[in-house]
């Protein structure tokens, strides 16, 4: 910081010799003239003094009979006349600085963080509708209104904060972590639990509602297992009325499941020839500047690397520089052997089993086999699983008259 101030104000390195340089230095300090970097050379002293201090040295030098000579000039006051001679350079510098200042009045990047369920694209399309986009003026942005708007538009957002950091708009949100509430049925309307597939009941715990099946029963898809219409009986065991509840139960149904995975016999293998080609490019916004756009090879894949230059990184100005590496390859036709096909298909099948386990489906028995079908290897799995998934359906209300008649 001190060095910057010294540079702005300007300073000189002087050479002092004569009768008593020490007295010269003492007088300088007495007159509050700062001296620094004092060195003893062969027969003289050198030191640095500010430009303002240097202008007050003459009487001190005369009084101490010391001789003073400038060795080197440093700082902006000496640099300005040099600049003045180079008008084009100065103009370029001024244009650069004004572009810098001008571009700092706009928003050049929008960053959204903290969103998990709402995608960044959803955010950006909402912002576009609200006239907030890259390239807009900073003063046109009402941050408070934006925060309110986000909370209004997305129900999942419980907290939203927007702030400007340089030319970047940073939006941070917090989504509601609490589980989604189950729809509470209206009064007088119950919910049944129905079987989502054919199978056999292996376990059953009913907390609310009337069970319609029991353990060991075979059920078919769509069959009501627990009814949300609970009868209230009279003393003579006749139904007086029905109370409608939202059924709640843990029911495990065992059922059979089939899964088939296919893999074509042959495939194209990329055999890289080792020939590569690198092309550099600069991307400014939507425009791409590349040395050549000629097709690199007959068959190739490309790896693109791009990075904002350090100067633009913090400014968030969309200027990117990078390179594309083209790698040539040849397509070679190959056939899968039974081991290879088995390995690939087993991988796919295991992934399916894992996804079932993640859903809470317990596999009790599995029969997996691989065979050569027409044009493809086929792996089929015959599974017996225990699933706790249930389908919620609205309870059929008993017509008013019938309920009364029952009562």
């Amino acid at each position, binding site marked *: 910081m001190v060095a910057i101030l010294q540079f702005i104000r300007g300073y000189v390195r002087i050479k002092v010799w004569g009768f008593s340089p*020490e007295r010269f230095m003492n007088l300088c*300090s007495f007159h509050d003239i700062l*001296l*620094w*970097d*004092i060195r*003893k050379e062969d027969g003289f002293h050198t030191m640095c003094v500010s430009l303002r201090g240097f202008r007050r040295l003459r009487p001190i030098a005369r009084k101490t009979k010391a001789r003073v000579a400038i060795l080197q000039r440093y700082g902006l006051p000496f640099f300005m006349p040099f600049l003045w001679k180079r008008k084009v350079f100065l103009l370029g510098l001024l244009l650069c600085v004004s572009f810098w200042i001008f571009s700092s009045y706009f928003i050049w990047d929008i960053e959204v963080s903290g969103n998990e369920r709402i995608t960044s694209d959803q955010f950006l399309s909402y912002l576009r509708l609200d006239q907030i986009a890259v390239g807009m003026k900073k003063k046109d942005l009402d941050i408070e209104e934006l925060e309110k708007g986000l909370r209004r538009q997305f129900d999942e957002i419980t907290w939203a904060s927007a702030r400007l950091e340089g030319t970047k708009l940073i939006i941070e949100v917090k989504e509601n972590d609490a589980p989604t509430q189950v729809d509470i049925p209206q009064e007088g309307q119950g919910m049944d639990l129905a079987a989502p597939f054919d199978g056999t009941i292996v376990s059953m715990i009913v907390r609310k509602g009337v069970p319609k099946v029991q353990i060991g029963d075979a059920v078919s898809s769509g069959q009501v297992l627990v009814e949300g219409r609970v009868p209230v009986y009279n003393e003579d065991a006749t139904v007086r009325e029905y109370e409608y509840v939202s059924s709640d139960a843990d029911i495990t149904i065992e059922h059979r499941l089939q899964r088939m995975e296919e893999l074509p016999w042959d495939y194209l293998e990329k055999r890289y020839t080792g020939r590569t080609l690198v092309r550099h490019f600069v991307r400014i916004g939507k425009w791409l500047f590349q040395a050549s756009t000629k097709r690199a090879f007959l068959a190739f894949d490309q790896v693109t690397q791009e990075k904002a230059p350090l100067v633009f990184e913090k400014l968030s100005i969309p200027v990117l520089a990078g390179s594309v590496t083209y790698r040539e390859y040849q397509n070679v036709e190959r056939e899968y052997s039974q081991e290879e096909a088995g390995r690939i298909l087993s991988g796919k099948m295991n992934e399916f089993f894992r996804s079932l386990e993640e859903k809470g489906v317990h596999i009790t028995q599995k029969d997996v086999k691989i065979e050569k079908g027409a044009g493809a290897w086929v792996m089929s799995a015959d599974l017996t699983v225990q699933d706790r998934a249930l389908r919620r359906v609205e309870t059929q209300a008993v017509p008013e008259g019938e309920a009364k008649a029952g009562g």
Partner: protein
Amino acid sequence: MKKTSSHHSGKEALVEALRLPKDVCLGAMRVTLTGNSEAWIENYRGILEYTGQSILLQGKTCQVCFEGSGLAIDYYTNEDMKISGCINAVRYL
């Protein structure tokens, strides 16, 4: 001579008793050394002699001589100064 020394000791005793800073009240030179490469000095009157091998400073009550090689003055103001270089000895004269 005797009188002066007793006066000094009396003043010193008073400063000691009141726990006042000695450099302020007695005008003692304050020298802070960092290893043998840097010295920071306060409360001096001026430079008496400066060569590459020694720097002789005048204080209120005594003179201090820094001896060494490649001695340079980083900055020099009315309040304080900093000496850098290879300091071999500090002598009070």
